[in-house]
């Protein structure tokens, strides 16, 4: 099939950006979205131009590196699918596709479709861990964990840190991201000990980094490629209240 792409091009953080048009010709249905971009890029390079820069690594939907807003939706319209797992059979001949970088004050553009997401790392540094040293820990079965709690922790731990939730949120909030980490660790006895400091540290950091607040749009859940649920935000709020008592 033949497609028209409208792609955000921006040389660097301070350079102005704009949408440029490209033709993607002879695209097969089996290709992934990024493979389609590879084909377009090969053409650009052969013509001596600068290929479209985009972030990607695993191409398996697990590293959270790929990050593109496709036709206005982070990761595109397919549910629970990262850009790298999106396949061209979901498009049709003649389509025009708009491709832009993640939006959000906390995610400045680095180049073209690549943004700086280091704010998410700084959120984790503000408490998203258990303060355990290497060595000197009890046997793994010494503390039993009810299956339900372990499953909740795992559901929350599915987060791949791609930032789609922030990009989708009209307020640019990182609530779902923080909620996932807080819920994972608060559900486990190992993480309970520091639960109060963790939730307060992470919430404070969130506003320092320029992330907005949550006003219940639930766009984050819709955009999350791993199906992380907004119910964790309720859990986050409970944990936050609890931390003051």
């Amino acid at each position, binding site marked *: 099939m033949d497609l028209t792409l409208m792609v955000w091009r921006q040389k660097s953080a301070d350079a102005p950006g704009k949408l440029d048009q490209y033709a993607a010709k002879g695209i097969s249905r*089996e290709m992934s979205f990024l493979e389609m971009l590879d084909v377009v890029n090969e053409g650009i*390079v052969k013509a001596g131009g600068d290929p479209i820069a985009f972030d990607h690594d695993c191409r*398996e939907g697990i590293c959270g*590196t790929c990050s593109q807003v496709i036709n206005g939706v982070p990761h595109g319209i397919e549910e629970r699918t990262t850009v790298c797992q999106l396949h061209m059979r979901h498009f049709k001949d003649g389509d025009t596709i708009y491709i832009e970088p993640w939006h959000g004050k906390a995610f400045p553009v680095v180049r073209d479709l690549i943004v700086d997401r280091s704010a998410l790392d700084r959120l*984790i*540094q503000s408490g998203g861990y258990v303060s355990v040293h*290497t060595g000197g820990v009890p046997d793994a079965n010494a503390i039993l964990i009810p299956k339900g709690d372990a499953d909740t922790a795992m559901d929350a731990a599915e987060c791949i840190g791609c930032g789609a939730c922030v990009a989708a949120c009209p307020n640019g909030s990182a609530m779902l991201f923080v909620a996932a980490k807080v819920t994972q660790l608060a559900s486990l006895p190992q993480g309970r000990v520091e639960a109060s400091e963790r939730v307060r540290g992470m919430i404070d950091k969130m506003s320092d980094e320029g992330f907005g607040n949550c006003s219940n749009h639930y766009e984050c859940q819709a955009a999350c490629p791993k199906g992380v649920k907004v119910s964790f935000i309720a859990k986050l709020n409970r944990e936050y209240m609890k931390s003051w008592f």
Partner: protein
Amino acid sequence: MILDGKCPSGPLAEKWSRHRNDLKLVNPANKRKYRIIVVGAGLAGASAAASLGELGYNVEAFCSQDSPRRGHSIAAQGGINAAKNYPNDGDSVFRLFHDTIKGGDFRAREANVYRLAEVSNSIIDQCVAQGVPFARDYAGYLDNRSFGGAQVSRTFYARGQTGQQLLLGAYSALSRQQAAGTVRLHPRSEMLDLVVVDGKARGITVRDMVTGEVSSYAADAVCLCTGGYANVFYLSTNAMGSNVTATYRAYKKGAFFANPCYTQIHPTCIPASGDYQSKLTLMSESLRNDGRVWVPKQKSDNRPVSEIPDEERDYYLERKYPSFGNLAPRDIASRSAKEVCDEGQGIGTSGRGVYLDFADSIKRLGQDAIRERYGNLFEMYERITGEDAYKQPMRIYPAPHYTMGGLWVDYNLESNVPGLFVLGEANFSDHGANRLGASALMQGLADGYFVIPYTIANFLARTTPGEVPSEHEEFRKSREEVDALTKRLLSIKGTRTVNEFHRELGRIMWDNVGMARSQQSLERALQRIPELRAEFWEDVQVTGSGAELNQELERAGRVADFLEFGELMARDALQRRESCGGHFREEFQTEDGEARRDDENFSYVAAWESKGVGRNPELHKEPLEFEDVTLAVRSYK
């Protein structure tokens, strides 16, 4: 040169604890004076950087991704082994050791492998303490599953994303150290050279992948944790950014490269669908617990699955290996798939595929139980192929996946270049000629959490901190070399893209140095690779400049290294005139097509010393001695 692995003496089970007692320590007050560089932030790098930071060393960590949470290890699916024996099914440290040595076809060092098995239990304890949500049963205990090459259930897992959860555990420990100020992390930074001063590793040269700035960092020791080189095949299950550059450039600076021909082809991947294919997706080996592998008995049988009755199906793994069946080790399962496809029994349009069928398990356990175990894998399969594996069997085919070879290290994980340590998949140490499933995660974390903190101290205790400053002449030279290479790549302005060269190299490697190799195919590769390399340096097109974010330039540098490294692989495969593990030489097989090892002549580690591009490297050998296992034909029948 005969290499010495420096394995400690004494009984196998006591070697590591005795050795630890002999290792020198660094005074706590002095630790912060030592600067350690850690390159790569997969499991090995993240766990090492975090543990060394915690001990109080001054750590500079580098990774090519925008965040260490995205290291390639994140993609591991199936699980991590440990000798806990929680299921009471007869496991022990010795048995894990023995399975691993045997799985590696007796081409690994006994002492290293034993230590790996010994620390495996601590890894699970550590990860649980960090909040890794491993699978549990209804009583709240940890759950285990089986993996290929073992008859016990010793694999711990977190749904189908164990690597992700382990890496996030290590990343959280690393984040904690970043907050504490002991680790300084440099994301989007690619190491492009190792700086060696007077024979010792003293630092690295790095390109900032955003600004293009090239700078050097001096340190008292350098740890390379930069993963494997399976992308030499172009198509592999590895992340797109995985490459050989760090280890290969260290090799060019004097570090020996060991057993480069030992590569693992994973039996269960989604078959390639076209030329544009950029990578192959693994379907976790754990699926073989409940899936049965088969092809039609008839050649070129195009009937839909539902029309092929059971007696017309060849469950070839169950037939050939009755005691291990579908859980036969990877090298054997891959080669068997190739054989049946070579025979014309392969499925799909290309005929390069076999079925992995869950119908029986679904009948026996119900769809919910299968979904609980592998739900996300089935989803992934459907997302890529558009097919529902609950209703029809998966189509799978082998793909390059893991590389057992790597930089040569001694028992302390130190290379032959003093001060250069190599951890995880980047070294060659523990898996011999074939790695068992769920053992790479174990090794990465063993190296990073439980080995390097001890062995590096022993090195540092004999080193004056900050002996060589980054103003040293060698650092300037190294930067000039890196700049010159960038200029050269940008000046060619040819007609073919980097990707085209990589794809072509991959084809040469897969056809000639892939699942089966022969003298003839290897000689062909040794002729074709230098030709292709020459074409690359005449005709590659790399656009843009060096002083900006330039992904083409990044790839060009990596492919340039693969174009030299491929030759080293072929050379190593050619000298190893035996079949062992993942290295199958067609000339050396038994009558029923099994690998024929030659212990008399090839029971050694082949470590290569670079003599410069286009000149033959020199082969050094480390003899392998076995005190506690008896070398046997590796039978899974």
